[in-house]
């Protein structure tokens, strides 16, 4: 029965993931305002544009590849990762990086060594750090549609953005005690005491991710490995609530749930065997915790994913299952050919 639910073609797989993104995207629009929708729309248009351009330059058939939805998925994933008040050029540049540098330079669909959306995110973060860190919408004060539109055009006055909760723990909360932290409006007005608004977005992604699990587009290994290692590490170091970021914040305040089901699960750039996927996800979880805690960046998923993408060939070599009839599993690459 479950085998029937599984999408029967690559484009159906992509389409299912796009559908599963929708609950998160809708809740995102509700929490952060229409900037999210503008980002997604411009990402859609530019993803199709860059994909068609690259296919044309590479002399490949355009329509069959465009209709496999893979470019659209990359565009949406990036749009949903970017700051909600990002100007249009940031989105277009990001999607351009993802499709051109992240995917087609390596040979198109199926050949990219790293996650294209995360590659673009990391590039934007180092090349446009101000836009990437200061344009996060305050979920308690989301902009009206007109304001969101001017933000999208890059001409809006300030006043609707705020630091993210993960950021707060790294900056404003230093030196504060746990009860004092709870007085911050983002935490005080939150249902779970974690991050107002943001937590609902995370839970909506979680719901979409469960859908992907039910359709057998993804397996449990990656979400469990990633969330498990992240939660375990943050719980181990959360003994002192005044200095550590609590586990629930790691889970619900950043992009953890989004990444667990939609980013790490990119099959092309991830490990390929179930055991390999588990190790890959555990690696991303540990790196995410380390970078969030000790690194310079507020959210760390992009870098953690990219680093683990580079480790994938090695993981694949050491995690093959034992071939039936052999005494041990095959290790290593078996010659350099």
């Amino acid at each position, binding site marked *: 029965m479950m*085998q029937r639910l*599984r*999408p*029967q*073609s*690559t*484009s*159906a*797989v992509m389409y299912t993931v796009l559908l599963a993104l929708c609950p998160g995207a809708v809740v995102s629009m509700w929490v952060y305002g229409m900037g999210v929708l503008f980002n997604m729309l411009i990402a859609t248009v530019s993803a199709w544009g860059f994909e068609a351009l690259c296919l044309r330059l590479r002399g490949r058939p355009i329509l*069959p590849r465009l209709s*496999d939805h893979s470019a659209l998925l990359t565009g949406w994933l990036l749009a949903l990762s970017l700051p909600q008040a990002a100007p249009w050029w940031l989105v277009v540049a990001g999607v351009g990086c993802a499709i051109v540098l992240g995917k087609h330079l390596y040979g*198109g*669909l*199926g*050949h990219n060594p790293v996650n294209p959306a995360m590659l673009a995110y990391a590039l934007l973060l180092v090349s446009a750090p101000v836009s990437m860190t200061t344009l996060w919408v305050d979920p308690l004060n989301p902009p009206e549609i007109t304001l969101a539109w001017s933000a999208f055009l890059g001409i809006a006055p300030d006043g609707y953005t705020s630091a993210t909760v993960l950021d707060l723990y790294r900056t404003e909360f230093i030196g504060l005690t746990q009860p004092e932290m709870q007085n911050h409006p983002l935490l005080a007005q939150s249902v779970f005491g974690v991050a107002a608004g943001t937590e609902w977005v995370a839970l909506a992604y979680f719901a979409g991710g469960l859908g992907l699990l039910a359709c057998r587009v993804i397996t449990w290994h990656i979400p469990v490995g990633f969330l498990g290692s992240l939660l375990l590490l943050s719980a181990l170091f959360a003994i002192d609530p005044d200095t550590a970021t609590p586990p629930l914040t790691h889970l619900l305040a950043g992009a953890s749930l989004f990444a667990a089901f939609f980013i790490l699960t990119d*099959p*092309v750039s*991830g490990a*390929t*065997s*179930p055991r390999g*996927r588990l190790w890959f996800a555990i690696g991303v979880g540990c790196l995410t915790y380390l970078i969030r805690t000790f690194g310079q960046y507020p959210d760390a998923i992009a870098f953690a994913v990219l680093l683990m993408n580079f480790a994938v060939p090695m993981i*694949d070599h050491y995690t*093959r*299952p*034992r*071939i*039936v*009839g*052999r005494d041990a599993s*095959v290790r*290593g*690459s*078996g*010659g350099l*050919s």
Partner: protein
Amino acid sequence: MADLNIQTTRFQLPGGIEPEMHKACSTETPLEQLDTPKHLYFPVHYSGGGRGESLVHVGQRVSRGTPIIQTDSGVVHCASRGGQIVCVEPRAVLHASNDISDTIVIETDERLDQDYLEPLSWPWTREILIQRALDAGIIGLGGAGFPSHQKWGAQHTLVINAAECEPYLTADDLLMRVDAHSIVRGACLLARTFEIQRIVIGIEDNKSHALDALTTAIQSARSDCHFEIVILPTRYPSGGERQLIWLTLGEEIQSGQRPSQHGILVHNPGTLAALSRAVDGKPITDRIVTLTGDQMRSPKNVLAPIGTPLTELLAAGHTDLEHISSLVIGGPFMGFEVMHHDVGMTKTTNCVLVRDPMPLPIEPCIRCGACAEACPVNLQPQLLLNALESQALERASHEGLADCIECAACNAVCPSHIPLAQWFRHGRARLQADTEAQQRADAARLRFTSRTERLERLAKEQEARRTARRAQSVDALARVRQAREGNPS
């Protein structure tokens, strides 16, 4: 009365898939005996058992059972019906290679004369049974057509492969329903001759009629053999030789070894039934063929004489060549597409499958791992494909290409519709060719070095002889001189 024990398997296949089976359509109608066709075709080389040689000449009249082809392996193929040899000409064969072979064409007639062997009577020796298998043309009827007698030897367990796990195929199912007695008898006499202690039947749980028939046959058999029936879940490819051994006995055959090296003999039920008839003197002349597929107007099983042209089989299923898009011999997974239709069926033709294959566009591999999940030997087909696409045969071999059983379960689950199994089949053939070329090169190198050594040795010996001779002649000269000097004239 033979002893019987029925149980469900305790073991599980690592991968495997649950395809739609499409079996019911061809089992609804009873087995039908096909009328003798006008012409019968017997390829000299691809009838099973290796390359062959014709034993008959044009114009000769043969009867049902007359030996007509002698093969390299010793297996003799017999005429399935009486008639006149009208010609021996090169024709396409019904084989995955779609090759051409000299083919004996028999024009059948109305006479029903038989040219059978003498029935054997117990006790007989192993050699006599082996000779009988050769004379009766017994080869594996499951599909590979391997000469059965070559597997017989020092085995302790006989596994009967009644899984028939491929969709559409019901020929074995029907055989078990109508002639379970012959299967049981064949197994018993093989076990008795070769002192096999254990007989295990592996059968999928979707064949309840066949299971009932087997149970009845075993319980009414006049033999002291002990039978075990292991019921397997319907899961492709539970009928693969190694997979079946794992599911029934829980034993894993080492990579690169054959089951016979583990003391296990695997036979298709059809082979055992044929052996039972061979002991009575009847060589293989007929077999059950499933005529099925979405484009077969009346799907059914027929008992057809070996050599029957495909067109006659299609006609029996009320279908003709104009109305079919593809014709596959065997199941949808492991069968092969037929390019020439004017060919005769062979002993291994278990199914004629006609359907619209609806080829889907091939998309790039996204490493989703669905194939690895389906692989019954735990290969990573996505990594294998990557190696083969980049012509890295060595890497593919390291990834376990040689362990692939070509079951094509990966093809069925690939969302990008990549024909993985075809890549692997091709890669395996190249690997085989490379190994053989390597062996030939090694042999040539060995020949060359030993020749060089030999020539060097000969040259040295010659040189030594020459030196010795020279020394001798110098000595002789010196003696002569000495003598001269000593005796001045």
